[in-house]
């Protein structure tokens, strides 16, 4: 199952997804703006719940950013879904 990346997502994963689409600087700006809106500090978004809050803020930016944010939502839900599908 390791081929399916069941590790919990991280802030780095989320930022990398933005960078892949928008490039480094625009991604950093979008992430910082979303963190401000979620009242969190970039670099200190630690839990899946906090990542979800930032993703929700990204979704409110609209356009392609909202598409990436929705994608993140499903990725964040991955572990929870998998552990229901595959009881430990």
């Amino acid at each position, binding site marked *: *199952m390791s081929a399916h990346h069941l590790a919990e997502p991280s802030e780095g994963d989320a930022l990398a997804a933005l960078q*892949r*689409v928008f*490039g480094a600087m625009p991604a950093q700006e979008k992430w910082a703006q979303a963190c401000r809106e979620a009242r969190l500090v970039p670099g200190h978004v630690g839990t899946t719940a906090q990542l979800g809050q930032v993703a929700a803020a990204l979704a409110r930016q609209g*356009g392609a950013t909202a598409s990436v944010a929705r994608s993140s939502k*499903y*990725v964040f839900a991955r572990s929870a879904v998998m552990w229901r*599908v*595959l009881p430990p």
Partner: protein
Amino acid sequence: MSENPLYAEARLQEIADLDLLSGDIDPILQRVAEESATHLGLPVSLVSVVLDDALHVAGSHGITGLWLDETKGHPLEWSFCATSVRTRAPYVVENAADDTTHAANPLVMNDGVRCYAGVPLISSRGFVLGNLCVVGMAPRSFTEAELRYLTDLASQAVARIEQRRVVTP
């Protein structure tokens, strides 16, 4: 930035412009999915939207009671539908359990998916948005006529999707 069309900002913008991520269930997309599954005699059909890292279900048939009906999406690494975004062509898997790409996929190992046929949903602006696909729980081949049928239905789905455009050219 990546050259991979999966990660193209313009494609992801097109998906947003077409309002494909709203939570409402479009009855026409549901009907397209139902017709696909019924015509090919398979239990499941999806109108999928392929995002950069995940698949979103915009229309479906045959997933009631399954976890996918609740989540309405899953990570792209489990997806069969992403291939068509890269190739812009139909994609068929006759027996996923024997397929090196998909054999270890949780949808195959745990949900029992065996056969898959998907055709791309291509917008009028030329972006591959996702797929119309059918899924079965037993190995199966697909004829050219069946793929043409799916392609025709995919055109109907795209026509419906284009009506959802929230940003005009």
